[in-house]
């Protein structure tokens, strides 16, 4: 059995990847404190509960990224001849599915609060001998949990673009949307204080819809990636131009008459096949194929293990 060649990030991206790993560890530590702070003032607000659960769920993408970071570079072996690049996709699907399920649960839970006319209450807490309305502390905790992630998200998004990492991108998107979650929960708490019992449940529903939206989008992307759809840019916005670029490169080679390329994503890397019809008398074909294979991999760091297949003609 032939194992796939080892893959290593280019040195400059190794540094970017290390930075991303550090950032994700920092995220986890920060999230742990935010989760603890929210738990301390949770009370009976449904919106607070939703924001709290969303914070717990925001641990999943960083965890998925870090798990994948440990696995993706393992060299291929007899059991896994293609290596472990797909671990990124598996981690991504797992995290997305959890997100979707949890969003659905909160949506149901919050809708039932509305249906049952449940009125939430927020009372007092004693702080240094003073009685303070717990709602103010909740709002403080929500600000702490909602504002820093926006900055984290921006930093992660830059790295995600460089690394072409979809898990990191999904994480960045969730972080960037955190202010909206915190804002909705704050309005829910203010609503309770204003005697508008339904405001809290409505805020929770808004938050849960946001989680469901995130979860659905990510499950979709994760499934599509595992289904080997055409490679896209890191933000899934458009098809990656690399397929056309490789075809153009091959078509310009003197020994190639026609070329068609098919690529798929495995985590960070792109793998696939290049079908080539040689000109009338190309010369030493094995030599040419080997050289061309290397030339393709030199086009972009992400191109890895693209098999060059020589055919007498291409159908259609």
């Amino acid at each position, binding site marked *: 059995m032939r194992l796939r060649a080892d893959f290593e990030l280019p040195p400059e991206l190794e540094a970017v990847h290390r930075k991303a790993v550090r950032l994700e560890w920092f995220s986890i530590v920060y999230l742990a404190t935010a989760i603890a702070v929210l738990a301390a003032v949770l009370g009976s607000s449904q919106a607070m509960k939703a924001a709290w659960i969303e914070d717990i769920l925001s641990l999943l993408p960083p965890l998925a990224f870090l798990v994948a970071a440990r696995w993706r570079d393992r060299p291929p072996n007899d059991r896994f001849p293609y290596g472990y690049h797909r671990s990124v996709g598996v981690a991504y699907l797992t995290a997305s599915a959890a997100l979707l399920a949890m969003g659905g649960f909160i949506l149901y839970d919050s809708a039932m609060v509305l249906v049952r006319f449940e009125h939430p209450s927020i009372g007092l807490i004693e702080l240094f001998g003073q009685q303070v309305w717990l709602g103010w502390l909740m709002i403080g905790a929500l600000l702490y949990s909602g504002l820093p992630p926006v900055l984290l998200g921006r930093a992660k998004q830059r790295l995600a673009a460089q690394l072409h990492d979809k898990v990191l991108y999904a994480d960045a998107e969730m972080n960037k949307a955190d202010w909206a979650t915190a804002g909705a929960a704050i309005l829910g708490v203010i609503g309770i204080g204003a*005697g508008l019992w339904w405001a809290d449940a409505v805020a929770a529903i808004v938050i849960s819809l946001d989680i469901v939206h995130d979860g659905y989008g990510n499950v979709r992307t994760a499934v599509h990636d595992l289904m080997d759809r055409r490679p896209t840019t890191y933000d899934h916005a458009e098809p990656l131009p690399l397929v056309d670029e490789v075809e153009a490169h091959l078509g310009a080679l003197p020994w190639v008459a026609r070329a068609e390329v098919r690529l798929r994503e495995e985590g960070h890397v792109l793998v696939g096949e290049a079908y080539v019809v040689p000109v009338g008398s190309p010369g030493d074909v094995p030599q040419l194929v080997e050289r061309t294979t290397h030339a393709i991999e030199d086009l972009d760091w992400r191109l890895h293990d693209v098999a060059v297949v020589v055919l007498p003609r291409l159908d259609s």
Partner: protein
Amino acid sequence: MRTAAVLAGLLVLTLPLPACQWPRDAEGTLDRVTGGTLRVGLVEAEPWVVLDDDEPDGVEVRLVEELAARLHTEVEWVQGSESALMDALHVRAVDLVVGGLDSSAPWRDQAALTRHYLTTTTVLAVPAEDGATTVDDLQGRPVAVERGTADAERVRTYDVVPVPVADVADADGPVVVGDWRLDDLGLRELDATVGTSEHVVAVSLGENAWLTTVERFLLTRSGEELGRLLDEEQP
């Protein structure tokens, strides 16, 4: 964008509210009770709510009376089981339920429990003249404990022999007793807690002005005041 629009809508709804009362009630309980009638559900639980005579008595009954006086409100007492009164509270047929409720009470879906205003413990204690100085000295000894209470079983963790009695005040020797009765019964506390109770009262859900008014009243009661009320309820 959609999220932002909903947030803006909620903000507009909450902004024009007058700032005079904060937090506010969903159904205006505090405004209705002030200068009006306060409907209080009573669950018998000595020494917190005592229903022996025509007039209700007990620590929490006294506290409610004092609160009512401050709000210039008339109290309408209703007796009932805890389940019935919590249901009544849920549909706002009463405004307040007292009866030795504990912060771990399972009524969070029916009622808003206040922050606890007092923590009491039941402890192992001996008569002043008893030789025991630590809980280890009581190992294997009979200890009087009120019949049919959780303490009667929990005290076994200290390797003593529980003896169920009707009232520990009549017992000689070591007893399990509420910490507020130690002085009155001339008992010496050993360093051994058997049970802990965080005392709360229950109000209607969503009535935040009412809830915080009750909480503020209860939390500002001094230890001496609560101690005096407890002393007055000694049998």
